[in-house]
Structures are given as structure tokens and as C-alpha cells.
């Protein structure tokens, strides 16, 4: 967290080589462990609980799923084994400096060239964009608007015409970058037909994985608040014996359990490819966003003054909760999406 990279490469190696986690959802023929969304979400829940700083969400969740959803057989075979092994870091760039998560608003243009495409424009809020080796970029072909003409493109981060800048992020546990493309050479991932579909599918899967990561974090905050309430003594009693604190903690538990149910249910629905799973992705993301932040706020409150200090780790979860609240679209965005997806 404290380094320029934002993670500990030794821990990343352990997580990749000993536990094979970056490829947990990648089929075995592409070098993965052959599990699916449910198992991926179990991993993100645990990483969220531990508040692990590692390029997991970018490489495994975003880039891994983008390649699985969009890539040709040859591309999957070429790209996925290195990601699954953790040997290469990757990320997905969708949002632009306007911070809009609807792919229809994408303005980066991919112009066909002699050998592939040339990218022009800017992406921002790119998770681990400063350390990724492989960039997957959502862009549109010239003179298209809305969801038409969208597709995913890949390029090495060191390609010419790529300018990366680490942003000063409020959440120190999650690094984000702005990436400018000045005629950067890129390859089409998959094909140009209905390119919006794999982008949306990847974002919905990411929303579910993030929801699970958030409920893991919320559980850690709840545990921390409960433990502190049992230790801290004021007025001759542990503060956990006051109903004002007990009731707050009971409400926190209820919130966390509800958000967990939504996150688990959405993961299961996505794994089974049930028709309503994209709606459930929005439902789970909105639920977990509100719960994680509220749990963080209440956890600080229960800790009192110590909770607002830099030395107490609660602020790290609070900041992760805040960045997760808006990353991939804030709760109001997903609530509106849910209403649309339910046909209301």
C-alpha cells in the first residue's frame, strides 16, 4: 500500500503460485483452476475481508473476464495462461475522465490502421493502470454513437502513444490511473459485432465480484466494532452492554447479512447464467455499496475518537468502502439500472 506499485510482489507471487487464485475462474485449457463465478466471489469476499492490496481485481476479475467474454480461442489461449499464473498483470479501461460507467458514453476512438487499430482519447479510474502489463480498452470505431460500434482492444502498457499517470486516490489500498492514448497501436479483442455485450457482461460480473468483496470488508468492520464494544469500558461498564451500542451493532449485523445474501445470490445466478442475473448484479452492487459504507461509518462511531485516528486501521476499510461505493457505478446508478432491467 505504501509503495509506488501499491502491493507486495512477494504476496502476489504466493497468492498466484501457491494458491493459483488469479485463474480460479479460468477454464483449465487456458491455464486456470476451472471454477466459476461463485468461487471467484468467495476469493474476492476473503480479499475484501483482509483488505488485501494486490492487483487481483484488475487482473483476475476485470481483465480475466473481459478476455473470457470477448476473446477468440486463439486470444484466450495466448493471453489467459500468463494472467492465471499471475506472471503478467492486466486491467480493463472503460471509464473516461467524466467518470461515467455506461459504455454508451465511451469516447475513445479506435481507428482501423494497416496492422490493427490506433487508439485516441483518455481513460481514467483505471484500476492498477500504473502497473498493468496488458491493457484492455473499451473503445468505439469512428463515427459511431451509443452502444453501437463498441469493442474491446488490447495493447501492451509500454506501447508507443500510451501515457500513464498514477492518480492520487483517497483509498490508498486501491490504486487508479489515468491513461492517455495518442494513436497507440492496439489489437481487436474478439470481433466488432455487438461489442457492447461483452463489455456489459464483464462489468456486471465485476459488480458481483465487487459486491462480494464489499460484504467481506463489511464483515471485518462489524467484527472489529463488536470486539471493541466488548473491550472498551466507560461509566464502569463495557460499552457493548449499553443498548445504544447493542442496537446499532444488531442493525449492522442485519445490514451485513442482507447484503451478503444479495451478493451470494447474484454470484450463484451469474454462475448458472440465469436470465435475470444482470439485474441481480445491479441489485447486489447497490446493496453492498450502501452497507459497506454504513458499516464503516458505524464502526468508526463505535470506536469513538480512536476510530478517527490514522493509527487505527478502521480508516483503511472506510476508504475502501468509499472507493468501492462509486467504483463501477454508484448505488443510485445501479438502482436505476435495476429498475430498467426489471422493466419498471
Amino acid at each position: 500500500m505504501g509503495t509506488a506499485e501499491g502491493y507486495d510482489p512477494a504476496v502476489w507471487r504466493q497468492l498466484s503460485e501457491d494458491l493459483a487464485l488469479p485463474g480460479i475462474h479460468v477454464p483449465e485449457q487456458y491455464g486456470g483452476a476451472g471454477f466459476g463465478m461463485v468461487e471467484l466471489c468467495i476469493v474476492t469476499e476473503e480479499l475484501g475481508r483482509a483488505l488485501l492490496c494486490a492487483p487481483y481485481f484488475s487482473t483476475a476479475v476485470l481483465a480475466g473476464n473481459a478476455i473470457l467474454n470477448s476473446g477468440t480461442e486463439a486470444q484466450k489461449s495466448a493471453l489467459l495462461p500468463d494472467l492465471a499464473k499471475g506472471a503478467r498483470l492486466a486491467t480493463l479501461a472503460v471509464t473516461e475522465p467524466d467518470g461515467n460507467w455506461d459504455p454508451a458514453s465511451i469516447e475513445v476512438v479506435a481507428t482501423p490502421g494497416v496492422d490493427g487499430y490506433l487508439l485516441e482519447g483518455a481513460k481514467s479510474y483505471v484500476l492498477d493502470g500504473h502497473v498493468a502489463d496488458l491493457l484492455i480498452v473499451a473503445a468505439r470505431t469512428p463515427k459511431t454513437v451509443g452502444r453501437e460500434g463498441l469493442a474491446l482492444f488490447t495493447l501492451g502498457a509500454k506501447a508507443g502513444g500510451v501515457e500513464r499517470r498514477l492518480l492520487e486516490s483517497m483509498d490508498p489500498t486501491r490504486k487508479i490511473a489515468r491513461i492517455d492514448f495518442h494513436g497507440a497501436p492496439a489489437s481487436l479483442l474478439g470481433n466488432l459485432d455487438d461489442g457492447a455485450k461483452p463489455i456489459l457482461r464483464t462489468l456486471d460480473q465485476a459488480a458481483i465480484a465487487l459486491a462480494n468483496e464489499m460484504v467481506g470488508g463489511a464483515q471485518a468492520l462489524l467484527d472489529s466494532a463488536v470486539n471493541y464494544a466488548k473491550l472498551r469500558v466507560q461509566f464502569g461498564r463495557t460499552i457493548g452492554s449499553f443498548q445504544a451500542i447493542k442496537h446499532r451493532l444488531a442493525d449492522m449485523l442485519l445490514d451485513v447479512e442482507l447484503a451478503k445474501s444479495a451478493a451470494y445470490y447474484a454470484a450463484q445466478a451469474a454462475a448458472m447464467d440465469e436470465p435475470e442475473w444482470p439485474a441481480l448484479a445491479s441489485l447486489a452492487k447497490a446493496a453492498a455499496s450502501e452497507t459497506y459504507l454504513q458499516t464503516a461509518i458505524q464502526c468508526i462511531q463505535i470506536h469513538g475518537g480512536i476510530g478517527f485516528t490514522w493509527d487505527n486501521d478502521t480508516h483503511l476499510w472506510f476508504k475502501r468502502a468509499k472507493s468501492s461505493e462509486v467504483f463501477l457505478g454508484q448505488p443510485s446508478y445501479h438502482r436505476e439500472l435495476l429498475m430498467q432491467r426489471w422493466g419498471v
Partner: protein
Amino acid sequence: MSKVNETEVRAEVREWLAANWDPDMSLVEWRSKLADSGWGMPQWPKEWYGRGLPHALARVVEEELSNVGAVGVAKSGVRLLAAATLLEHGSDLQKKKFLRRILTGEDTWCQFFSEPGSGSDLAGATTRADLNGDYWIVNGQKVWTTSAHHADHGLLLARTDWDAPKHEGLSYFVIDVKQPGVDVQPLKQMNGHASFNQVFFTDAKVPQENLVGRVGEGWKVAMTTLAHERRGADGLASPSKRGARVGRIHAEERAETEKANQPYKWYPQRAGRVDLVIERAKETGANRDPHMRQEIAKLMIMAKSAEWTARRARAAQQQGRPQGPEGSLGKLAASNVARAAAHVHTLITGTEAMLTGSGSPRDGIIAEILVSVPAVSIAGGTDEIQRNIIAERVLDLPKEPRFDTGPFRNVRKN
């Protein structure tokens, strides 16, 4: 649960149904067969009208009954709480006397727990039972008694020792409601319905053999009843019935259900009627308002998450985990959902929410939701009590300091 077992159970129950099910039988006759064969409550012990099957297989039996359109044993009201309590704490004599008639629907039950002076603090009951010869003589007043006006038996929590500490001076009885010393009066609620009663006991009699558990163990026995009650409040609907519903037996069942449900027609409304929200938004055009859409989505997210949480709790229970305080979580969630639903119904309905009765939206149903929801967070244990239970038993937080220890005689009361 092995596949073989499930297949065997299915085959066995199918064969039994083929030989026994007849929709032209009388309801009691059919339910007697269910009780005696054990197929009515297959999860109950073999010696007491069950077959000792695990919960998962009991569901299989329920499915099979439902597939041929067969009516199940009587389950409405307090009767299954009574049965669960008697199965755990009752004497063999009591089980023999009461369980079968619970299942056949011949007897209706009610619960005499709350009192005007002890609502949340149930253990503060001051209705007294004094032993006189072969009978306990009961005096005092109970309140919020659902079904007392048509019940045959009541589960009674009464004080038998005033010198013991609060929780240790209570005993648990089965009392005959239809006797001169029991006076049942309906209690009108803020929504105009009268689903509950206040009940006055004046020298009412309980034979000694109707003491459940030992003298002074009433609180422990009552906890069993309450745990089952909270679980029932998780807001999950029972599976819907399939198959043809014609024949004498179905007519009798419908009549029974109608009579039993008459005072509780508003119960779906007190839960907030989340099922109506999206329809109402569409029919009023509220679905075009971005603010309303946000509020509707917030409600639906909470309601869906609560439903899935209840399913998780139920799945855990079906895997054989004992009934625990997670019932309180479901009940608290249901209160939150109901309140949020009343809020959203008001937003959608707008000024028309000032109206009530047949001229008001949805033939008065919306108005009834708005004035019924406040019951949810009180009935069956207030939200505050549920939070205490969650905090103390799930999160293991320390108890509040108490002011009601020592002999109950000296404890401050209303």
C-alpha cells in the same frame, strides 16, 4: 441425505396416497389418517404421529401430498407452536391427549403470554396460579391473545412462586379456554380490526396433569414456544398448493381457513404488500419519476435481500442446525421492509393516501397497509427486543445491568 432415501420415501408416500387419499372424505377423517400414519408430520418422532424423517425429506413428503392435491394436517394459528412445545416438554399423557387433535384440526389453540403489565418483559407476568387440591386456580389478565375467541386450549404462563426470582417463579400450563372462569373480550386496533383479545381469568381451573414441565420451569418452556414463533415470522410464504381442489374435503378446508383467517385479513397488509409496489408504480405513472424509481429500488433491494436471508436461515435449519436466534434477524428485517413499503406506497399514492375505504386506491387496501404496518415491529416481540436478542445471543455482547433480581415480590411493577 442420500438419493436412495429420497426415492424410497417418495415411493412409499405415493403408494400410501394411492391407497388412502380421497377428496370426498371428511377433513377430520383424512387428517386422522395422516396423523396415525405419520405422513402428516413426517419430521416428528415415530411414536408421536411422525416418521422421524429429517426436514429435507419431510419436504419431499409435502411435495408428494401437494402433487396429488391432498390436504395436509392442520397447521394454522398457534397449534404448531403448542405442538412443538409439548413435543419438547410435555408429558406422555399430554402428548397423547393433545397432539392428535392438533393435527386433525379438531382443537384450536391460543397463547396466554403477554399481559397489560408485561409486554416486552414477558417474564414479569403477574397472572397467578395457586395449587388447591387437584387443580391450579388461575387469576389475572392476559392481552394480545390471538384466536382466544374460538380456541379450545390455551398455553398459559402464570406465576406460581412470588418469592422466587422473576424467571424462576413461573410455570407453564395448558388451560381449557371454554370454562366459566375465562372471559374473552375482543380488542379493537387502530386499523379498525379486532384480531386480538383481552382475557380475564377469575378462579379458572387447570387440572394438575396439565402442568407442562416442572413447577418453576415455565420460562424455559415458554422459550421453546417463542423460538418457534419468531421463526414463523421470517416473511417466507408457504409453497403454493397444486392439483385439483374439488371434493368435500377441500370445501371443508376452505371453510376452516376462512373462519380461522377472518380476523387476520389485514395481515398481508401489515407486512407492507411489497408485491403491489411495482404494479402500483406503473398504474399511477410513478414509475416515470426518477426519485420514485430510486425509492422503489431501495425497497425492492431490501425486500429481496431479506427474502434471500430468510432462505439462507431456512436452508441452514434444514441441514440440521437447531432453531436459534437467527429468527430474530428475519423478524427485524420484516419490520424494516414493512416500514419502507408503507413509505413507498405513500409516495406512489400521493394525496390519495388521505382516503380510506372502498373509494380509496385498491379498494382500501393501500389505506389498510398504511395503518396496519405499525403492528409488525411490535407483535411477537418488538424490534428493540429482537435487537437485544441479536446483540446478546448472536454477537455475544454483555447483558444490561438488571433491576429485577431477587424475590419477584419486591421487584418494581406497573
